[in-house]
């Protein structure tokens, strides 16, 4: 009964809308919301294997399944989403009429992500990824902050263009092989130029949706402006759906050596660009959003080296620590998100959680980040391994900056759930790391030491004080530029795939 993982959140999303229309009691709405969030976890814990919905034959039916590769994606999403659900009920707090709608949209997002992660065929994957994205657009636009509508519009147009091109590529794959099911495509694909082109187009579209450099233009705005729990889910889980799509794509149509090398180069560029972008930010949530660009680079590195298990574990690790960081920084910086104007000086428990999460994202053992990084670098050749190590130090430099500023400021009152959610996710990164068998390593201490040194060197050289370009006022112009970059990038990918 694996499809129930999707059916429960969908059902309760509709129940919430009906209860809201009938002006039902708030407790009922809350109960429906929590049921919709938790029931898929129950299905996940009891079910394994593959099945075809409705018992049709494999070529025509919709195949879903839980395997070694998608289980970490699902586990990460479920843990993060449960914490976010508990956080978001007091966060939205029925202040206005938007609350029940936000909760229903969050459940739709949950359903979309679950559906995308269990999908075994391309079209079904597209539909569920689209459900998740559409809910995400609406949730970003629901934010009261100035500029949220602009960010949502930019996100919507770019993401939609990518989706249509992805479906176009699915059409080419269907035309060439006659199947949509990933395994049947893999069995029936004969190497041809059309399939190479389809692989390139689909891959570039998914890169845009995953927010990997150079197609990340929409990501920092959308992820930093959204309400805190939504930011956590966007960064922690929504960008993982296209990452899983890339795994499906590569397992159906194995890429050639040149293409894989190019993608690995791109992944490393994304890692370092994200870190550089984050170092220059003054806004705490934007800093975290740039780290999503950087961390997605690692997931891509795992995917491109055909190390799907490594990519899946890194995606799970990123869900846990990035979700936790967004929740904790968002709770601390309720009044101002500018670095230096708030902090955890008067909140020791938060300080503890943020420090743990920072070490986890830096890939310090025994947190889960180091375990996932270990699997990814075990599948890489000599020079690429150095890129992973340099990325670790870079990430730690940026988080030294965050913690340096946070340790100077103070925060207002924190609700118990705000402290608890960050702590739970921090402990989850530690426990998952210990459970999976990450061992403390002495070299990590030298990375932290190097990172602190580099941070102070950068700070005294004044590089970090540079003012970066503010966001443009004209949303249309932004979209024009980003689409042009996307089209140029796609032409580049097609050129690589041409011979």
């Amino acid at each position, binding site marked *: 009964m694996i499809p129930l993982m999707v059916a429960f959140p969908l059902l309760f999303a509709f129940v919430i809308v009906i209860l809201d229309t009938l002006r039902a009691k708030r407790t009922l709405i809350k109960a429906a919301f929590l049921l919709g969030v938790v029931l898929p976890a129950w299905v996940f814990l009891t079910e394994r294997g593959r099945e075809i919905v409705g018992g049709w034959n494999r070529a*025509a039916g919709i195949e879903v399944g839980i395997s070694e590769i998608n289980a970490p994606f699902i586990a990460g999403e479920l843990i993060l989403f449960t914490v976010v659900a508990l956080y978001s009920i007091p966060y939205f707090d029925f202040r206005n009429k938007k609350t029940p709608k936000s909760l229903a949209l969050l459940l739709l997002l949950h359903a979309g992500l679950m559906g995308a992660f269990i999908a075994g065929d391309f*079209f079904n994957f597209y*539909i569920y990824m*689209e459900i998740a994205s*559409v809910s995400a*657009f*609406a949730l970003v*636009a629901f934010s009261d902050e*100035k*500029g949220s*509508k*602009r960010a*949502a*519009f930019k996100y*919507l*147009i770019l993401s*939609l*263009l990518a*989706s*249509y091109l992805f*479906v*176009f590529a699915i*059409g080419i794959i*269907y*035309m060439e092989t006659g199947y*949509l099911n990933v395994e049947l495509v893999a069995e029936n694909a004969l190497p041809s130029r059309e399939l190479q082109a389809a692989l390139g187009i689909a891959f570039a579209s998914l890169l845009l949706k995953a927010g990997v450099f150079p197609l990340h233009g929409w990501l920092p705005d959308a992820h930093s402006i959204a309400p805190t729990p939504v930011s956590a889910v966007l960064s922690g889980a929504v960008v993982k759906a296209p990452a899983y799509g890339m795994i499906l794509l590569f397992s159906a149509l194995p890429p050639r050596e040149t293409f894989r090398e190019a993608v690995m180069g791109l992944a490393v560029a994304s890692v370092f660009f994200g870190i550089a972008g984050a170092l220059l930010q003054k806004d705490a949530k934007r800093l975290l959003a740039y780290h999503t660009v950087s961390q997605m680079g690692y997931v891509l590195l795992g995917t491109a080296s055909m190390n799907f298990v490594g990519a899946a574990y890194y995606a799970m690790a990123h869900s846990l620590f990035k979700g936790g960081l967004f929740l904790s920084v968002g709770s601390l910086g309720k009044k101002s998100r500018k670095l230096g104007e708030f902090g955890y000086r008067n909140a020791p428990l938060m300080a503890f959680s943020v420090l743990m999460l920072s070490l986890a994202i830096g890939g310090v053992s025994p947190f889960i980040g180091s375990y996932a990084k270990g699997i990814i670098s075990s599948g890489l050749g000599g020079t690429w391994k150095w890129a992973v190590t340099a990325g670790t130090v870079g990430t730690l430099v940026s988080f030294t900056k965050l913690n340096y500023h946070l340790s100077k400021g103070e925060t207002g009152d924190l609700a118990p759930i705000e402290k608890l959610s960050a702590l739970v996710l921090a402990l989850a990164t530690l426990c998952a790391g210990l459970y999976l068998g990450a061992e403390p390593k002495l070299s990590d201490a030298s990375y932290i030491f190097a990172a602190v040194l580099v941070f102070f060197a950068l700070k005294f050289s004044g590089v970090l004080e540079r003012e970066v370009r503010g966001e443009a006022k*004209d*949303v*249309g*112009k932004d*979209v*024009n530029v980003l*689409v*042009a970059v996307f*089209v140029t990038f796609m032409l580049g990918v097609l050129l690589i795939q041409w011979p």
Partner: protein
Amino acid sequence: MISPQQAGVLIMLIGIYGLMAKREPIKLVLSINVVSLGLVLFFIGLAYSPEKDVPIMPTDPVDPLPATLMLTTLVVDVAITSLALAIILRMRRDGS
């Protein structure tokens, strides 16, 4: 004569040109709709075979799958367009 698939791809390219050249948010939404229409035409063209039978009680049926897929995509399209228009209205109201 060009085939429906080629026409579909051309229409998609026209939509993408609109996305790169127009600034008005409404025109961007229209451009996205043009892209999706090109996509629908491409898929319908894939399964276009006039000499074959309808896929109900078939002897030699056409492939019904592309048309079905496009029904789903059209539904997504309608929902997205309305959402985009709603966001544009809000953008105006915010003065941004």
